[in-house]
């Protein structure tokens, strides 16, 4: 296949990190070089795909069999945006990691693990077959657990185990749903399912099982219990990857299912998910306010932000909702990654992340604090951040569907996030500038965090063209996202 064939790009998006992982596993010495090459290559590919899918979705039949017998790779604007976001965050962490790993004495097996994680992410975003999605989910979950456990400390190990068990139960619920769907419709391909899915008991059972499973993996309140530990005790670059990308993946699958086979799901289910989302926003924010460790605060903020994503389900039929949610996923990924990387710098410098002892940070690590602050401003959703546009679209959707209670929720949630973000920044502005210096923070670590936060902040200015791409034929119908080729 020629490089011009967009289908080939899809394949390479999965294979490039996988091959890189194999090489790194065989010859550890070249790890960093390989990782950089892969990161740059996948970023280019992702951008190319995003550009291409603007003209319409791309399908690629692996092995030439074609769905429903074979497995297809599928990319539409939603996929494109996710791929681009993932590759950006991974690019940043790739340059960030070496300094951090060296200092925290973290095993170099980080590299193969993180490369497989990327392969799993891309494979999941490109998957169009519900069983294939199951395999990618497992690949993703196990690599994430391995990365968490790299922080070789008992708390981290415990968090990793808890994460693993939760994610296994979730996968099995999902798999049982797949089994029931397959045995009632005889196909695994999302499109074919969306065509043939009807309101049979089997479909609704599958809906329940798969949604629950994915909600556990996506840490929807009250199934978020595994997240704070896993995301806060992991090494900083891993925390960034988990909060920015990994936790979005199951939600992405939910999006696919609810825009496809489950599009006609009873609205009560959607409302229930929305209510849980609201609970997540409030609970997560309140917990974030009560933490005294920076990384735990950021982790709980992720719990809250996931709540915003789940406002998708009650508004699923609204006009601008898909654009809003997609943009929100991207914007949150960038901002949250920046915040975790900044937190990593602070820990690296101070040796701890107790919020009350953040003196000197404003003076000694201005760029890092700026990165955290800008990331926080994005999370709050102030203009011109991408989150602002995204929340604007959410509220618009709420007004369109006449249920503007959800709009109030969005604004309230933003206020709460402002509270915990500035709680941290306030502590960074303190008088006592103790002369004692902390560990020097390597330049790449500072700049990756800072630049990432700038990208997140200015995302809103580029939102218009992005939204042009995301907006698909008839919004509000099952092929709103162009699930149908």
């Amino acid at each position, binding site marked *: 296949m020629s490089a011009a064939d967009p289908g080939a790009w899809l394949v390479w998006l999965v294979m490039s990190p996988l091959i890189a992982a194999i090489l790194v596993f065989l010859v550890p010495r070249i790890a960093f070089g390989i990782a950089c090459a892969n990161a740059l290559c996948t970023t280019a590919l992702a951008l190319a795909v995003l550009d291409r899918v603007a003209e319409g979705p791309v399908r690629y039949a692996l092995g030439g069999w074609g769905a429903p017998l074979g497995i297809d790779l599928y990319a539409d604007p939603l996929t494109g945006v996710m791929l681009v976001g993932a590759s950006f965050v991974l690019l940043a962490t790739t340059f960030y990691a070496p300094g951090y790993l060296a200092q925290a004495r973290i095993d170099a097996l980080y590299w193969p693990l993180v490369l497989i994680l990327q392969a799993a992410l891309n494979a999941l975003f490109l998957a169009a077959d519900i069983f294939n999605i199951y395999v990618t989910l497992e690949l993703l979950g196990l690599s994430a657990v391995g990365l968490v456990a790299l922080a070789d400390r008992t708390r981290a190990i415990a968090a990793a185990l*808890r994460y693993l068990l939760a994610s296994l139960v979730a996968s099995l619920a999902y798999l049982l749903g797949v089994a029931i769907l397959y045995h009632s419709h005889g196909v695994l391909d999302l499109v074919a399912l969306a065509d043939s899915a009807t309101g049979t008991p089997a479909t609704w059972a599958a809906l329940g099982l798969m949604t629950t499973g994915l909600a556990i993996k996506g840490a929807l309140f009250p199934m978020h219990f595994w997240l704070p530990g896993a995301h806060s005790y992991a090494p900083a670059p891993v925390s960034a990857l988990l909060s920015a990308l990994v936790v979005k993946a199951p939600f992405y699958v939910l999006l696919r299912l609810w825009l496809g086979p489950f599009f006609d799901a009873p609205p009560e289910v959607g409302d229930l998910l929305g209510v849980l989302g609201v609970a997540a926003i409030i609970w997560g924010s309140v917990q974030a306010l009560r933490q005294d460790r920076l990384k735990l605060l950021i982790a709980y903020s992720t719990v809250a932000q996931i709540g915003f994503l789940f406002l998708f389900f009650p508004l699923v039929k609204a006009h601008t909702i898909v654009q809003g949610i997609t943009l929100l996923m991207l914007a949150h990924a960038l901002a949250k990654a920046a915040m975790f990387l900044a937190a990593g710098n602070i820990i690296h410098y101070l040796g701890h992340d107790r919020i009350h002892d953040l003196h000197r940070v404003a003076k000694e690590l201005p760029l890092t604090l700026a990165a955290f602050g800008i990331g926080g401003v994005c999370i709050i959703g102030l203009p011109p951040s991408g989150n602002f546009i995204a929340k604007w679209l959410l509220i618009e959707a709420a007004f369109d569907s006449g249920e503007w209670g959800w709009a109030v929720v969005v604004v309230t949630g933003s206020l709460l996030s402002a509270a915990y973000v500035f709680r941290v920044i306030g502590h960074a502005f303190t008088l006592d500038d103790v002369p004692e210096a902390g560990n020097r923070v390597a330049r790449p670590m500072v700049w990756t965090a800072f630049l990432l936060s700038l990208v997140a902040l200015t995302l809103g200015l580029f939102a218009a063209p992005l939204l042009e791409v995301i907006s698909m034929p008839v919004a509000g119908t099952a092929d709103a996202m162009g699930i149908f080729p």
Partner: protein
Amino acid sequence: MNVGEPDARSPLYRVLLAVVTVSIFLGLTFAILSLPPDAAGLAERVDAELAATGVRNSVTATLLHFRGYDTLLELAVLLLALIAIRAIRRGEASPPRPGGEILTVLAGLQAPAMILVAGYLLWAGADAPGGAFQAGAVLAAAGVLLVLAGVQLPQRTDGLQFRVGLIAGLAVFVGLGIAGVLASSAFLDYSRLGVRVVTLVLEGGAAVSIGLVLLEMFRSVLGGSRAPRKASRSMGQLDG
């Protein structure tokens, strides 16, 4: 360490949970009973395309050809799990357990036979039930037997050859996939590579990897794996 959030001991909680699970059961039962009595699924399509795969066993055909991509990813899962385990263990090694004289001898006699069986399963897999996974499992079993019997296996589990063995299955899949691309037009499309050969190579690579990885996992759990500490340190320096 408790997956459930509230106190799992409180009887009320247990009762509630029991009610929930029972209702889940009832709901799923209803769903399953409502399934159509006979559903073809993809069986006919598989039979129709079977000839094109050069494999007579439809399960093997599905695994290696129709849904080969799944199999590829799942080999990645195996490898990944092993890498993660190594990263976690950082190689606390426990001494090889002393095995009884007779046990050692018998195991030494039995292992070759098992390896032979594995080979047969591999070959037969194309036409009859069997194939890479069964073969790999038997291989691993042979290894496990030897380990338990205290037979000294090569301990350098981080050597290059050994690692090549671990990744063989995945590498073969990816390699042949790309070869398929170059030869004809689609990733994982073997139609122009001589399907029979391809099938064997894939099965062989997969079997070796699966056997080795499973064995490695077992030894890790035993705490028997040596040297990863050294390995991880030698790796640890590279980006220091």
